[in-house]
Each structure stands twice: as C-alpha cells, then as structure tokens.
C-alpha cells in the first residue's frame, strides 16, 4: 500500500509539472499538428493532400508555317497549358522574350519557363529537322516543374508519335516497293493523333486506358493517406517522448537523493525497497498516463486509426514496460543529475532518432536496405515497429517477434536498473 502511495504521490507531482505537459504531450502533438497543416490540414480540397499551384512562364517563339495552313503547334501547346482543366495546377503567364521568362524564374516569380522554339511547327509537321523545347526551371523545385514536364511530354507524345508513325510508314512502304498514294500519310498522322488524344491526352496516368492503376490492397482499404502519414509520425513521436518520460521520471530518484529527501524517507519505518519500488511504480504510471492520453487525443484530434484494440493494448503495454524499464536502467547508470543533460539530450535523442528513422524516410522513395535493420539496433525501433504493425492492421500473430523482443529487453533492463539502485541505496 505504501508502495502505491509513493507512486501516486510522485505521479501527482509529475502531472503538476509544466515541463511534463510540455515534453510529454505538448511537443509530440505540436509536431504532428505541424505535419497535419503541412500536408493537408490547411488544404481547401476535401482530398487531404493537395499540390500548390505552379507559376509557369510561357514564351511561344513558334512561327506558323503557311504550307501547314498557318496551324501553330506552339500555340496549341501554350493553349493546353492555360486550359481550364489545369488552372488549379498551373498559373500561366506569357512572355514575349525567352530572356524575360528565364529572368522570371531567376526572380522566383515562376517555377519553370517553357520556351517554345521558332521552328517548332516546322519540325513537328515538316518532314525533316530536329528541334528542342526548353524547360528552364528553378533548381530548388521538383514537384511543380515535374507536373509541367509531364503535361508537355503527353503533348509531345501525340505530335512526335504522329510524325514517327508517318516516317515509319513511309520507310516500310518504300522498302516494299509500294507507292505512297496522296492523302495516305496524312490519314496515318490524323489517325495516330486521334488515337493519342483519346488515350494519352490526360495528365493522370490513372485515366489512361493503357494502365489500370490502383493502390495496394491494404492502403486502398484504409483510404486516407494523410491519416497514415500522421499516424506514423504520431507513433514515432510517442515512442520518442515515452522514453524521455521514463528517464525523466526515474531522475526523481537522483534528485531526491541529491536533495536529501531520499535519506530522510529512509529514516521512516518504511522499508527502503518499498520506497524505491514506489519510485519505480511512478515511472510506469507516468508513462502509462502519457501513452494513453496521446493515443486518445491524437485519435480525437487527427483521426489517427491506431488499429484493433487488443493488439494496440499489447503493443502499448510493451512500449510502457520498455520505456519505463529503459528509464530506470539508464538513470541507474548515472552518478548524479549533472550527467542527465548529456545522456537524455544526447544519447537518448540519437537513439530515438535512429529508432524512428523509417518515419523520416516516409514518402522519400525506396528506403535503402540498411534502413530496414538500423532502427532495430535500438529499443525504440522495436516499439515503433510494433505500433506500425498494429496501425497497418496487424494482429497478435504479427506482433509476436517485436513484443517478445520488447518484453525480453524490459525484463533485462528493469532488473539491471533495480540491481544498480538497490546496490546504491539499499
């Protein structure tokens, strides 16, 4: 009973601390909130993640060719970029000179300049020659210029494909000694252009008949990529700060020892092991409180789907045991509170970052093979892995390995920590 009294007293003291609220809840939630705003929370669209409009400078230097009925391929491209369908994606400004358009990019007024060459129509519709369409882009940007490049590629596919179709047909007919009749090549070009516009004219690959695009079954069922991103970040943050809470709660043992209050408590009829046990209970209670609040609050505010309750409870309990045991262990190795700065600020921060490194890699491309193993070098990595499995719909069976590792580590770290403290104080 005394053990629980000590535990509850210290828990109340922790809860009264602004520091605990700040680092236990404030910062983890603030970090997720920033990402929430960054990736859709401030978006006007209902789809969550949205792309900002890309300012585009267009210079059409193309000269229409009378023999092609004054049709201008350059004007067609410029019109395509300005069409209503792209107004959410592109904000097009026309310039007369290539130099001005490039300067607009240099001044960061435009993300990319599309410079259509004077011989564009002549090359596209003519029988020979080669030309280049220039895409002058801001080197610090990737998404906006990528969108523009995609649209232009689709446009060129239709025109260049038409021309290639005509060239190939001319060559094949000649090789077979067949005469090219009037209108035959124009018919091929027209049919190709018609086919290209019906199949590849859209920006989104999902809208072309060549590809049946879908998400992996797991994601398709879950449906909300923003919630997935936030969920992964929240899980990482929770693990990161739960370990800090475990360590900071354990630090009260050192603080009380240095302040003399621990010695004073030892003069009371309460057994020393009970006093220390009470301190350990505080560590577990504080981390439980933090984890439960973070799971509940993040689910309410950000709509994070934490997965099925039973596997979640198992993963969260394993996290609490591991974070608290680790805190007791690492604090037991310290001589005094003066060493906590380097250990908590340095060692634990680095371990936490390694443990949640896969969260940082999210959306950055295919992770290198080393990234699969690296997080599991530290205890935090196993906790992140367990929560990730639960959030991905994993059941108890999937959790066996991470929970076994976390459980084993918890037992070892707890007993080593308790042994060290008992050696020092009991």
């Amino acid at each position: 009973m005394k053990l629980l009294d000590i535990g509850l007293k210290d828990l109340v003291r922790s809860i009264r601390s602004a520091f605990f609220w700040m680092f236990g809840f404030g910062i983890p939630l603030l970090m997720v909130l920033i990402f929430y705003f960054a990736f859709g929370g401030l978006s006007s669209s209902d789809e969550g993640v949205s792309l900002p409009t890309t300012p585009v400078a267009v210079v059409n230097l193309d000269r229409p060719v009378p023999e092609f009925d004054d049709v201008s391929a350059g004007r067609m491209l410029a019109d395509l970029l300005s069409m209503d369908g792209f107004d959410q994606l592109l904000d097009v400004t026309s310039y007369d000179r290539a130099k001005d358009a490039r300067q607009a990019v240099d001044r960061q007024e435009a993300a990319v300049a599309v410079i259509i060459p004077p011989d564009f129509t002549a090359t596209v519709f003519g029988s020979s020659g080669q030309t280049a369409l220039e895409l002058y882009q801001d080197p610090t940007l990737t998404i906006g210029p990528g969108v523009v490049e995609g649209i232009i590629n689709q446009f060129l596919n239709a025109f260049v494909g038409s021309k290639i179709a005509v060239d190939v047909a001319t060559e094949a007919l000649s090789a077979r000694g067949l005469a090219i009749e009037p209108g035959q090549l124009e018919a091929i070009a027209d049919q190709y252009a018609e086919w290209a516009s019906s199949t590849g004219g859209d920006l989104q690959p999902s809208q072309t008949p060549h590809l049946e695009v879908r998400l992996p079954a797991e994601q398709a069922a879950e449906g909300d990529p923003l919630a997935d991103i936030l969920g992964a970040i929240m899980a990482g943050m929770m693990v990161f700060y739960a370990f800090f809470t475990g360590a900071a709660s354990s630090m009260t043992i050192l603080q009380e020892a240095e302040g003399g209050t621990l010695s004073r408590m030892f003069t009371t009829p309460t057994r020393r092991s009970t006093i220390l046990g009470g301190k350990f209970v505080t560590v577990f209670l504080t981390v439980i409180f933090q984890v439960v609040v973070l799971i509940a609050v993040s689910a309410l505010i950000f709509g994070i789907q934490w997965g099925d309750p039973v596997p979640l409870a198992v993963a969260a309990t394993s996290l609490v045991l591991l974070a608290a045991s680790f805190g007791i262990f690492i604090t037991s190795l310290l001589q005094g509170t003066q060493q906590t700065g380097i250990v908590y600020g340095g060692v634990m921060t680095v371990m936490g970052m390694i443990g949640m490194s896969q969260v940082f890699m999210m959306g950055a491309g295919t992770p290198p093979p080393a990234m699969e193993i690296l997080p599991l070098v530290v205890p935090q990595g196993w906790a992140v892995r367990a929560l990730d499995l639960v959030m991905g719909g994993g059941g108890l069976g999937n959790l066996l390995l991470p929970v076994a590792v976390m459980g084993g580590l918890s037992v070892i770290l707890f007993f080593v920590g308790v042994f060290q403290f008992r050696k020092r104080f009991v």
Partner: protein
Amino acid sequence: MRIIDLMLKDLIQILRDWKAALFLIVMPIGFTLFFGFLFSGGGESDPRLAVAVVDRDETAVSARLIDFLAGSSVVRPVMTPGSSRDRLERQVAEDELAAVLLIPSGYQERLAAGEAPQLELILAPSEEVGGAAAQAIQTAVSRVTGAMKAARLTADTIETSDRSVETGALVTIFDRAIEAWEEPPVMLEVTQSDPASAVEEEIGASGMTFAHASPGMMVQFSIAGLMGAAEILVLERRSRSLQRLLTTAISRVEIILGHFSAMFIMIFLQLLLLIGFGQAVLGLNYLRAPLATGALVIAISLWTAALGLLIGVMAKTEEQAVIYSMIPMFVLSGLGGAWMPLEVTGETFQRIGYLLPTAWAMDGFRNILVRGLGLPSIVTGLGVMGAYAVTFFLLAVWRFRFES
C-alpha cells in the same frame, strides 16, 4: 566597455558548461549527417525509385517496355521472377517499392491486333513517390503503345495493297518506331540558370542532399542554443544580480545590450562553426558568395539573439526558459521549412511559412547554395529578418524587469 565586460561574462558562463556544445554544435552536426544520410538513399548506388516488373508476356514488346523503364531517370525496373503478387503488393504498401507493374501474357498479341490491353500498376500511395513513378511509367507505356500503333497503321496501309503483314514484320516496324523515339524530332531539354548549373557541377548530387539539411539544422539549433543564454538572465533576476548591477555605474541600456551582445556572439560563432563544417566536410559552398553568407549569418544571429532576450525576459524560472525556447524552435523550424522544403507543403502552409524569419533564412541559404546567387537575391529576406530582430528586441526592452 561595460557592455563588452558583461557580454564576456555571459559568454564565459555559457561556454564553461560543456553541455552547451551539445546543443550548439554536436546535435546540429549529428542531425545534418543523419538527415543527409537518410535522403541520400543511405549509400544506395542507384537512387531511382524501384519498380518491380512482373513480365508474364516475355515478348519483344514487353522487353522494349522494360528497356524504356531502364532508361528512365526516375524509376529503375527490378525483375522479380520468384516473388508472388501478394508479396510485391505488400512491399509497395510498406514503401519498399514505388510500384509494381504487371505485364499480362498475350500483351503483345492483343496490342498487335489493335486492341487496348491494360497493364496493372500497383502504386505507392505517397503523392510524391507514387506520382513520380506513375508519370515515368506512363511515358514508357505511351511510347511502346504509340510505336505499336504506328506499326499497326503502317501494316493497315500496306494491307490495302493486298499485301499481308506477318507478326514478325509488324514487330520489325514496331522496333523501327521504337528506334525513332530514341532520337525524336522534338526533344525536351531541361535547363537551369548558369550559376545553378555551376553549383550542381561543383558539388554534385551528393552535396545537394545536404543543401537542405545543413542550413535547416543550423537555423533550428540556433534557436535551441538560446536555452542556456536565456537561463542566465532568469538566474540573474532570481538571484537579484540584475538589481545589484543597477547599484553600479552600468546603465540599464548597457545591461540589456550586454546580454543581447552575448547571445548574438554565441549564435554568430555557432553559425560560423556550422558553416565551416558544411564547407569543409559536406562539400557545400557557403563561401561562393561570402558577402551574402555573412549578411545572412548576421541577420539570423540578430533576430535569434533578440528572441533569446525576449525569452529570458518572459521566463520566470529555468524550466520556463527551456519551454519558451523549445516551442519557438519547433514552431519556427517546422513552419519555416527547416525540416522539409516548403515546396512539398500546401499553399496556405507556404504563405504562413513566409511570414516567419526561418523561411527567409532558408530561402537565403538556398539562393546561395543551390541557385548560386549572391547578395541582391537575399535583400528581402534580410529586411524581414531585420524587422523581426527589431520587433523582438523592442518587445524584450519593453518587458525587461530587473527584479523577479
């Protein structure tokens, strides 16, 4: 002179605690290397997005499609003969693959017959990864189907002359069309400014991976370093040292300027050290525009020091000094684009970001390190940061109390 004495006292007090080096130098360097390593692909030799290709057709057309993908600058095809479809799909879900492309058997035959067979594409849900992979795959598929369409149209024309075109001949015409795509009549040339090209040539792709992490962590940890400096002010107020100082010949203005100067020098030196690290170890060329870099460092040091003074004024306890330093550090770094380029965020987020000095600091470093620009390109940013410095400083002076 008294200002300098007070400044030196503060600096000695800050730097005597070796733990200050942790926040000022060790952590920013560690985080820069960590993020640089993560976003460089961790030493992966081919940084392109991995796309698993399941080729059940195994024909000339499917081979050409895979060749096209192999030539892409965005994706790299990974042949996975032994892997099940479920396993590959799981790998996409777990971000191990950017996409899986399934080429069904009979693909060439149906394409040659003028039909429109579909390829199945299972795509990573991330807009950046999935979107980029889809665009590259779409381009390759368009080229291959376009080449077959050209071959089909040619064959139809030949057949109007009562000549038949066998599948082998059709594939030969298809191959010819594919070859023509290798040197198309209209090319798309992606260019950038001369200074930016010079920077890219100079530091290479590996240097570019640190061009965001290095200034980002520099900006973030310049705020983190305020913790210790603000604590000194809190301690002086609580121990009544500030009041005692007032009994000496030093004026109130000199006391405030002394503390402010200490913070300014501390951050200035921190930034110089981190820039030196970036220049010497990470291969970034901060000294390409020494005037611009110098002006930027001074501007950042000014507004950060003024913020530090304000924190020291507002905080009543050491605990509060830490909290008041950490909150602006996270908010200003996160919203100002120190963690991720503002380009990848939404429009409203970007607008909010550019209300903050951190976004302008990041923009300034990007202009120097990536765009290869100089002092004129950062003038607006210097103005914004200067305005923040003045505002923070005036607020701090207004709220300055010599007793607790």
